[in-house]
């Protein structure tokens, strides 16, 4: 018979693992690479952020 605490821990572990996999798959670039994307997306977001903060 599996103790209740094992079921609770197991359920939490499954949720965490699924969440991590979803974040890795849906989130795309995870890690330092996302700061240095070559498509200019990161740079334009940063530019917008800097511009917006400069207007405040």
């Amino acid at each position, binding site marked *: 018979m599996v103790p209740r605490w094992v079921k609770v821990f197991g359920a939490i572990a499954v949720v965490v693992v699924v969440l991590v996999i979803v974040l890795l798959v849906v989130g795309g670039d995870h890690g330092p690479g996302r*700061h240095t994307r070559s498509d200019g997306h990161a740079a334009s977001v940063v530019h917008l952020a*800097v511009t917006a903060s400069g207007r405040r």
Partner: protein
Amino acid sequence: MALTTHVASSVGWLGAVAVFLVLGVVAMTSADTETVRAVYRVAEPAAWFALVPLALASLVTGLIQSLCTTWGLFQHYWVLFKLAMNVGAVAVLLMYMKTLDYLARVAATTEPTGHDLIVLRTPSVALHSFLALLLLLTATVLAVHKPRGLTPYGARRRHG
């Protein structure tokens, strides 16, 4: 000896992660650019020479400790959960070192741009440290209380 080393390295790892949480929050919130840059100049070597060795020592001594005692590695659920948490945390830490190396390189830039400073103020380090702290605290609770529960393999070994 293995138990003492395991407890020392695991608690040391927990403390080191707590320091990284503080460093991450400082980098995220400090208005002083030099302080933000200093965080990552210090964080990278601290991670390579304290965090990673402590994490690996905790994993290796935990394996030795369980294999060389009656607890075994796969016989009790609490040992199994601790092993999974430890392996997961070490794997994430080793992968995350790439991010810390990158942040240290950005921090070392002679004249950081606005983009560099935004990168350095990332909440990523604080977030990862916070989650690691939760995980390691849970592992500590398991180690202290050793909740009952034999795995099917453990039950077979015990009764078979």
